[in-house]
Structure formats: C-alpha cells, structure tokens
C-alpha cells in the first residue's frame, strides 16, 4: 500500500504528471499575459503543451562533437530533479514525504536543473554553448546569495530559538501564526524572492544565458527533438516549483480545511506569482548585461534579503 501510495505521489499528484501539466499551464499563462500586455492576442493557453508534444515527435540530432551520454542524460536529470522538488514542497499542510523535506535539500535540488542545462550545453561542444553555460553559471552564483539569505531568514523566523530548516516546521509555524508574508520583517525577503524567481527560471530581464538574439539560445543551441522538448518542459516546471516554493514559504498560513480547496488556492497563488514576477517584469523590461545582473543581485536583492535576516535576528 505504501509503495502504491508512494508511486502515486511520485508519478501522479505532486510528482511528475501534476508538475509537468501545471507547469506547462503556467507557461501558457505567462505567454498569454505577456502577449496581452504587448497588445497581442497571444497563443492559446495550451500552446506550450502542443509545443512539447510536437518536439517529442521530432528527430533528435546529436552533433559529432557532442558527448552522447551527457548530451542525452542532462535534460532527463533536470526533469527528474524538478519533479522531485515538488514532492518535498508542502502544499499547505500536505507533504508527500514528510520528514524528508529540508530547505537545504531543496536549495541544492533547485540547482540541479541548472547544472543539467550546463552539462548538456557544455557537452554539445559548441562555442555558443560555452558562452551560454558561463553566463548561466554566473547567473546561478548571482541569485544564490540572496536565495540563501532568504531561506535562512525564513528558517530563523519559523524556528524561534531552535533551528528549523525543515519545510514542515515552517508550514506548521504558519498554520499557527498566520502567513509569513504578514510578518512585516519578512516583506523585504518576499520582494527579494520575487526577484530571485525570474532569475532562477531564466525569464526576460535575467535570461542572459539563453539570449536568443546574442548567442542563439546558448546551451540549447545544438538541441533538437525530445531533449529540447524536455528542456522546455524543465523551464515550465521551474516556474511551478519556484512559485510553489514562494507560496509555501510566504503564504503557508492560508488554509481552508478542505484538501481539494487547498490545492486550488495553492494553484491560484502560483498563477498570481507567475503573473506578478515573471510575466509583468518580462513584459516591461529588457535583458540585462551579465555583469549588471551579477551586481544587481549581490547588492540590491541581497541587501533586501539581508535586511530581512537582520530584522529577524533582532527578534522582529
């Protein structure tokens, strides 16, 4: 029974299927909203899904210079780790595998899709991919510092005098004391998190790694067919994972008592986060330069997060 339930968790509900489907839906929402803001009609909401299935049917070309195993394995590893993270993010008071969710585990798992993209791009042997992975890595270093500060602030807040790296404790704390976002000391951290999300996902102002117009999609330049489809799916899933993480870190206190309703609220908040921090910013900004990106994250965003951490430390 436990095995069947585990398999259900892994494959259907918070796991692979739900993450993929809802992630693609969020990608559709994103495209639609951006189009609307730019006075276009935009593609239908299911367009990313169509794209994905279309790519699965296409031929996979592996260039001569590429290392075949790494080239093909990279998107899969990214995909699985993203599906995995969703298992450890509590959807209000539900976690698939309780007791094993931990902020540090999540922090590291979130880097894996990025690493997979880097390894895949790097293994293709293209100079454009080389530049792309370099930028991806710098982006990663850039958002890691504020991200870490945010997580530590939340953990400190939820833990009180003891330590709480556990997502479950954070969730319980919010159930008892109301959402994290209602604590005014956490507001700077929430804003910082909203800026970290687009960098993590790689949308408009922070998409230096895949800059289509400069380096021809960087790491993805040699990809085609199913692996490319998986990478596109990964990006969509990252949107869900990051907005889901945001929801459970900062909006964990909203609960209705009905499980289905909880999930719907969770999904609605995810959509809202996507619209606010990805679509809107995407529509109104232009791409940053890589060094500006780094400076932005290590000064402004980290500053916000640090303010939050210090406030929490002072007991506010």
């Amino acid at each position, binding site marked *: 029974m436990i095995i069947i339930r585990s398999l259900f968790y892994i494959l259907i509900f918070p796991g692979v299927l739900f993450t993929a489907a809802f992630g693609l839906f969020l990608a559709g929402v994103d495209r639609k909203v951006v189009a609307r803001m730019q006075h276009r009609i935009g593609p239908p909401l299911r367009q990313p899904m169509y794209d994905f299935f279309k790519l699965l049917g296409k031929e996979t070309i592996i260039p001569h210079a590429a290392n075949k*195993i790494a080239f093909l394995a990279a998107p899969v*590893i990214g995909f699985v780790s993203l599906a995995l993270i969703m298992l450890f993010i509590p959807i209000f008071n539900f976690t698939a595998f309780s007791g094993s*969710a*931990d902020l540090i585990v999540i922090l590291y798992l979130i880097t894996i899709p990025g690493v997979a993209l880097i390894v895949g791009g790097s293994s293709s042997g293209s100079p454009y991919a080389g530049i792309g*992975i370099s930028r991806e890595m710098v982006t990663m270093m850039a958002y890691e510092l504020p991200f870490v500060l945010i997580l530590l602030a939340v953990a400190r807040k939820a833990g009180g*005098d003891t330590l709480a790296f556990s997502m479950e404790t954070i969730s319980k704390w919010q159930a008892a004391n109301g959402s994290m976002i209602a604590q005014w000391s956490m507001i700077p951290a929430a804003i910082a998190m909203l800026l970290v999300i687009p960098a993590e996902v790689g949308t408009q102002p922070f998409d230096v790694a895949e800059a289509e117009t400069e380096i021809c999609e960087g790491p993805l330049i040699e990809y085609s067919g199913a692996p490319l489809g998986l990478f596109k799916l990964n990006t969509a899933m990252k949107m869900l994972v990051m907005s889901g993480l945001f929801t459970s870190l900062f909006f964990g206190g909203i609960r209705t008592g009905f499980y289905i309703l909880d999930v719907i609220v969770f999904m609605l908040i995810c959509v809202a986060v996507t619209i606010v921090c990805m679509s809107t910013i995407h529509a109104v900004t232009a791409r940053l330069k890589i060094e500006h990106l780094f400076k932005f994250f290590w000064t402004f965003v980290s500053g916000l997060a640090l303010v939050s951490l210090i406030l929490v430390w002072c007991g506010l």
Partner: protein
Amino acid sequence: MIQHFPVLAVMLLFLAAFCVEIFGSHNAGVRNTIVMIAATVAMVLIYALIKPVMIEGQIISYWMGNWEPVSGYAIGIGYEVDQLSLFFALLVVTTFWLSGVYSLGYMSKDHHLGHYYTLYLMLSGSVLGLVMTGDIFNMFVMIEIMTFASVALTAFRNDNEGALEAGFKYLVIGSMGSSFTLTGVALLYGQCHTLNMAQMSAILYQNLTPTSIMALALIVAGFGVKSYIVPFHTPAADAYMAAPTSVSMIFAGMVNKAGVYGMIRVLYTIFNAMDKSTVQMLIVIFGAVTMFIGVTMALTQHDFKRLLAFHSISQIGYVITAIGLGSALGLTGGLFHAMNHTLFKGLLFLTAGAVLYATGTTNLDKLGGLSKKMPKTCICFLIGAFSISGLPPFNGFVSKWLVYQAVYTKAVESGNFVYAIVTVVALVVSVMTLASFIKVTQAVFFGQCPVELKKTQEAPVSMLVPMYIMSALCVLAGLFYPLVNRFLLHPAAQSALNVTNYIDRMLGEGYAANMGVENIQVAPVQFSFWNPIVWLILFVVIFVAAGLVIIGSKEERGKMLQQGVKYDAKYATFFSGEEEMFSQVGGSDLFWGFKTDWKGYYRVLEGLHSGIVTDYAVYTVMATAIITVCMFVFMR
C-alpha cells in the same frame, strides 16, 4: 595480538622503505612487489582494527618496550589508538594504497623510482604514526618526517623548476610551522612534565595557565600550517601543483588530514579548549576565510592541478569551520567532510593525473573535448566534481549539509550573527565550487577538442582502477551515510568529545576521575531530513527514464557512419560560418561577468599571492601572532 597492529603497520612501512632502498633501486619488479605488499599488509592491519575499536569500543594502548607508567607518570612512548585516531588512520591507509596502485602506472615514465617509493613509504608511515601515537613529541617527529618527505616528493621531478621552487617554499613555511609546534611542545613539557597526551589532557583539564595558552596558540598555528588554513596556504597551492599527481593526492588525502587531526587532538583532547566560545569563534573565522579565499582563488586559475589545490584549501576550510564549533553535530560534519574530501579530492587529482599522463599538459586553455577520448576518466571526474560541489545524492552533499546545519544551529543557539554570516559564506562557497568545476568540465572534458589532442588515448587500467574505487566510495558514502555515521563518525566524534576513556585506558582506570575530568556522553547525530529509500527509488526512476530517452530518441548518426558517410552538415556543430579552430572558448575566459565585478578583489588577492617566499613567511608569522593574541585576550 591486536594491540601490536598499529605499531606493526607503521614499522612495516618504514622497513619497506629501507628495503626498497636496499633491493629495489634498480629492479622495478622487486620494488613494486615490496611496495604493494607493504601497502596491502598495512591496510589489512589497520582495517582489522575496525571491529574491536569502532564497533566494540575498545581503545588500544601500547607502550613501547613495555615502559608502563610508574606511579601515575607516563615515562615511555605510548601508542594509543582510539576511534578518532583509527578514523584518520583508515583514511590514510586507503589513500595510500590507492595512490600506490596509481603510481605503478602513472610514475612508470619517470626515473629513480627507488627514491620515489622510499620517500613515499616514509611519508605514509609518518602520517600513520602521527595519527596513532599518544606521545606529543613523537607526533612532532612524525610531522617533521612528513614535512621532509613531502618536500622531497614535491621536488621529485626536479627538472621542472616549479617543483624546486614549490619545494623550497613548502620547506620554509613548513619548518616555521614545525618550529612553532616544537616551541609549543616544549612549553607544554615545562608545564606538565610529561609528553604523554592523555596525561597532559588530564593535567590541563580546566586548568589553563598563560604558558599553556601560549603553547596552545603555537601548536594550533603549527597544525594550521600543516592543514593549510588560509594565511598558511600559499606554499600548499604551489606544492600540489608541482608534485607528481599521485603525491598531490597524498597531500590532499593524508597530509592535510594530519593537520586536521592534530587540530582536533590538540583542541579537543589535550586542551579541552572547545567549550570556550571565543576559541570557537577564532577557529570558525579562520575556517570561513579559508573556504572563501580558497574558492575565489580557484575560480581564476588556469591550471587544472592548481585549481584543484585551491579547492583543497577551500574544502579544508569547511572542515576547520565545522570542528571549530565544538558541538557533536559540527564535529560529525567536519569528520565526514574530511573523509569525503579525501575521497573526492583524491579522485579529482587522479583524473587530473590521467589527463596529464594522456596529454602532457594541465593547462586549461590548451585542453578540451576529452570526454570522447577519455570517457571513463570523464565519468569519474564528473562524479568527483558533483561530489565536491555537494550535489545530492553524492557524499559531499550530506557532509556539507551537516556543516551548514551545525553552523546555523550554533548561530541560533548562541544568537551570534557572525555564525549566520558564516553559514551564508559556506553556502555561497558551495556554488562557487560548482562554478569552478563547471569551468574545468567545459575546459577539459567538454567543449571543443583542439587539433593537437585528436590522438589522445584513455589512461591505462592501473590508473583507472583507483579512480573507479574512489568514485564508488563517493557514491556509496553518499547513499549509505547512516552506516558511515554509525560505524565511523559517531565513535570518532564521541571519542574526541569525551576524553575520559582516552585518559583512563592509558593511565589506568579512575585516573581521569581523580583529576576531575568529566565524562561526557554524546548522542548520535540524527539525520531526519533525507530518506535513502525514497532517494533510491527516485534514482531508479532517473535511470529508467534516462534509458528510455536514450533508446527512444531517433538517432541515426551511427548508421550514417557505418555507411561510410564521414561528414554531414546536419551533425556538424554550428559556428555561424567561422572556422572551428578560431572559435575556441578558452577555459580561463569563462565567467568574465563575475570577474569584472570582482576586479578590485582579485587585484588585491593576486598581489598577496605574490610567490615571494618572504611574503609568505610574513603571513605565517602574522597569523601566528594573531592566533596568539586572540587566545590570550579571550581566554583569560
């Protein structure tokens, strides 16, 4: 019988060293046989101690020449193997054996191998003796042998001027460190009138005089030199780079572990100083600075081995930070990271050696695209790189997690913001580690293959086997860490934190209690966050899915090649019309976005790593002075 094993292992190595000198200087077969027999027997002797010491909890004490203590005073030289010693001894023999196997292939192109193996056995014997001895002066002697053997091995390829220079710097800084240690030992002798560590521990328990604080500061500085924490790290980077790779692996796996062992032994066992929050703070800050400077220097290196050297320094920073916390969690994490560092850094040095052996260079700008030429080495390298970057599910992840947990717990418990900053530094350093390994991956194994390297061959089997073993150990230690914790880490941490048994076993039951030493019991560290069963299932899912994609992808390149079509534009890499040879992305060109933002920092740092030996000596003296002053100001 079992109590003879430690001394037999050490003496066997020394005896083998002399035998190599007598019989093996001209005959490769005899030489290799002696080396491998000695290495294997020493390994078996030490592994045989796991059951009595680690599992049954015995402590082995051994008095040379049966000179037992007379009326409570230790008069002889004692060997004492407790769990902590055995933990490090296991690391030492494992590294040593693997490095020995690797040397058979790797060093086969060099001359005068008799001397190489003599020094090599001597180095191993001295480190083994260092971690198992119970006598502080014997420890100092072993340190000296270790330093000399290290210097000579660093300068072994002395047709290369870098080797001589590195050897000289290492010698100067190393013997300064030894002099500090010796001064500390002398002061301690003046205080306690004994050289036995157990007895010192009992005498000095909660009873520190200014002289013994001075001794503590000097010995800590001395072991800092041996473990290459930051102001002392400068010659280490050169030595790692210039030494033959099998020796670099020993440095990373054994020599700086000897320094770490000394730190733990001195701080925890002899002085019991780790319950003082200011000492903790001092050591933790040294650790944090070490990890940060190590990794930022590594990001700009152009040489594979030098990059690995700076990473070695950086990872030791984690270990020092963790052991500086003085908590059971921190000590467990630190020991685990020390063990993992031995495994993955050894592995990475071995891959670097394989690349050097196959291509003749370790310059990152001249390498590239080797993953198709050396696929096995590439896979081993990736495992090592992911382990050191701490990606789950490899071993580095678990130990780093423990370190973060320990540091942040400390921060929350003590309410000290410095520890929170250290946690942030540790986490960011981890990403930077990842970044620099991405750089190596891109510059050496992936990316484009330069024309000169088209004919590169895979490394020979004798070099691949140690790499496989190390990779397997990296993965296993990550997956089965509860076993590692139960049988290795917890006993070791327990024995470091609770000195009663150590003292009693050496000087007779009840000695510690008479001297007022408290008996502290430590609960095993619980890992609740990470459920290996779930993770194993997920791993299987990953591999099944990967297999499906690889099988299911419509790939026709193989067929085309079989039909004799050599070139097809469809499978060519896109260069937008440039020639391939003009569009190389050099390894050192990566991350310029990062480097431009950090220009000022790097200018300062590169100025400090000037390469002038007197500058390094100045740092050493300054750091020692800082440690001394801090100890005096804070401990009184």
